Each structure stands twice: as C-alpha cells, then as structure tokens.
C-alpha cells in the first residue's frame, strides 16, 4: 500500500467515525487539515477578524457535508473546495465581492528588500492586498489555489475570459509592486525570491 493510499484509508476510517458524530474523529480531521484549510480562508478573506468568523463556518460546513464525501479525491482536496466555496459565499454576503473591479492602482508597495522568507510572504500578501477585489480573488484562486479559469468563472459567476482578464491585471500589477524582488537576479537557484544586497 502506498503512502497516499494509506493516508486515504486512514482518512476513510476516520471519516466514517466522524459521520457517526465521534468527537475524536472530528477533532482528528480538524487537527490534520486546519492549518491548510484555515490558511485558504485567511488568504481569500484578507481581513483576519472576518477570516476567523468564516473559518468556523467553513468547518461546520465541511463536517455537515461529510456524508457526501465519496473518496474520489483526497479528503484535503475535497475540504479545500468546500473552504473556497464557503469563503466566497461569505464574502459575497459581506459585499466584499460585490463586483469585479477593473481599475488598477499605480502605487507601489514600500517594503525593504530582504532575503528573509517570512518577510517575502508578507510582501506578496501586502502586494495582493493592493489589488482590486476581483483581480485579487482571481489571482489567489488561479495562481495560489490552482483553479482553472473555467472553475473560477463558475465559482464567481463570470466568464472564463473575464477571469483571464482579471488575472492579467493582477499579475501585471504585482509585477510592478514587487519589482524590487522579481527584477533582481536570484541569489540561490531562485527558490527564495531573494533580492541580493547591493
């Protein structure tokens, strides 16, 4: 049995117990997957307080939907889809995703170039926060979460062409906002996106 099939088998048994309402099984699923699921919610929501409210609702939805899990994909992948869907719904409710904006700001992010990985993450977070809500959502769903344009179109109720257009705007703006990082030559095989000290 491969590691993946072992994981899926373990998940399956845990899920069976979780469907029956077994608290330990539910907690095991939460413990194993919360770091990833909650990170998805945090990214899409943007606002930490809002993300916290949505995350709880996302987990309740995941557990409610457990009987519909057919094991066709890994549990994490299945839960990830629910997390994205529920977060987008919650954002629509709060009118943060009311319309896909097309205007693009020309500001740049003022961050100090650094090779520290956590600072780089903060940098792309900060840069993505400067995008219009529509461009930001499409960028996160496509380039971070791995959705196709067709899937994004379905989730957001836009066309695939509209999704491509928003992604272009997002990448173009991020490229400018992060020019100090992406224009510089890489110091160590490009893994750290680090800017060398001048």
């Amino acid at each position, binding site marked *: 049995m491969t590691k993946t099939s072992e994981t899926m088998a373990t998940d399956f048994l845990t899920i069976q*117990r979780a*469907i*029956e*309402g*077994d*608290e330990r099984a*539910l*907690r095991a699923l*939460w*413990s194993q997957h*919360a*770091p*990833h699921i*909650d*990170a998805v*919610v*945090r*990214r899409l929501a943007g606002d*930490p307080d809002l*993300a*916290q409210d949505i*995350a*709880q609702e996302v*987990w*309740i939805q995941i*557990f*409610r939907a457990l009987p519909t899990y057919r094991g066709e994909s890994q549990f994490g992948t299945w839960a990830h889809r629910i997390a994205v869907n529920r977060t987008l719904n919650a954002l629509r409710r709060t009118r943060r995703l009311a319309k896909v904006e097309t205007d693009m700001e020309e500001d740049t992010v003022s961050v100090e170039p650094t090779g520290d990985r956590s600072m*780089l*993450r903060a940098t*792309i*977070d900060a840069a993505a926060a400067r995008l219009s809500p529509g461009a930001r959502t499409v*960028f*996160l769903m496509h*380039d*971070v*979460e*791995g959705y196709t344009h067709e899937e994004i179109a379905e989730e957001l109720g836009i066309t695939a062409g509209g999704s491509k257009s928003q*992604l*272009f705007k997002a*990448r*173009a703006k*991020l*490229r400018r906002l*992060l*020019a100090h*990082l*992406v*224009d510089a030559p890489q110091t160590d095989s*490009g893994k750290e*996106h680090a800017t060398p000290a001048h």
Partner: protein
Amino acid sequence: MQHLLIERLVELADGEPTAAEREHLGACAMCTAERTAYQRVVAMAADERRRIAPPLTDWGSLRGELRTRGIISTPDEAASRRLWSARVASVGGRIAAAVAILAVGIVSGRLSTGMSVTGAMVLGGGPGDESTVATVSQEDFASTAAALQVLQRAQQEYERAALYLANHDTSVSEVASELLRTRLAALDEMAETSRRALGNSPADPIMNQVYLTTLGARNMTLGRLASALPVGSRLSRF
C-alpha cells in the same frame, strides 16, 4: 520579430511559447527579463499555496458549535447513528414500498370509478378536482431523520385508514356488488400489467411490492364482494 506584447508575456509566466516566440526570447534580453519577472511572481504565489499557519479556529469553540448543531454525538448517540446508518437502506426500500402502496391505492380507487387504466395512472387530479390537492408544508425538515419519521408515520396512517375503510365503508353498500366487481376487474387488469412489468425486471423491489399489494387488494375485494352479495347468491365469476 517585434517585442512580445505585455499580455503575452504575462501568459508566458506559466505557458509555453511558440517556436517563433522561443526564438525571439532567445535573442531579446528585455522580453526574457520580463518573462522571468512574471515567472517569479507566479512562483511566489505557488509558495504561498504551501504556506501553513496556526489555525484560525480553536477546537474549544468549534466543539461547542458542533455539539449545538448535533454534529458531535455522545457515545450512545454515535452507536445509535451507526444502527441508523445500517437501517437506512432497508428504510429506503420501505419508503419506496409505501409510495408503491399509495400509488396502487390511488389507481385502484380511480379504476373502480370507471376510469381507464391509462387515465387512472396519470398523476394528479383532474381539472378542477381541488379535493385531491394536498396541502404541503413549505417548511424544510430539520433533518433527514425527521423527514423519514414523517414518511413512516404517513405510511402507517395510510395503512390504518385503508384498513378502516375496508371494514367500515358503507357508502357503497347499496350498489356494493357492482362497484366491487368493477374494482375487482380493475385490480385484475393492474395485476396483469404489473405481472408483465415484473417479467421484465423480476428483481425490482418496487414492482414486486406493487404486484403483491395488488394481489392483496384483489383478495380483500373478493372477500368483500362475497359478503356484499344478496343472501343465497354465490360468487360465480372472478
């Protein structure tokens, strides 16, 4: 070749260039640098995907909410749910049977009033037949279990009402024998139709149920017909 358009360079961040574009990129440092910059943006996004962080949720508050909503069960409740899951399939079969019984009842009732088999099997009441329109609650059930419970209760009520009518319905007493004969003829026709359908799918549980229910209704009608005949008369047909 002219410089690649910015839109194309953005696409090439995670796309493959054509042969002509590849040739241009090999010779144009500016376009190559731009493409590399976009590729780095996309790589940073991919890094973000692998990012994990402390959970936003804490088990304490989530647990409370899950208990409130009935998602977490006590050990007794969990055992009960296991038992319930094991019975779901058989309950599903019984629901299908209940629907079949109801359908047979409706159709045989219509046939006994002289309707054709085709007409009797058409769903819904006739034009202006408001008495057949049931009042249906628009409210959702609280749970699947609640819906199943209502369905089972409805099945029991139907069976109880049918039994009562079989024993106490005197509305047809004056013309009992003729109505019962009509009903019997209709049930015979239904039994023959369902028997043919059963021949095509002998293992179909719903068709089995319809067939057996029809035969049961036929026997009951035969019994009533015998008792409705004038004293001294004997049943000589059917």
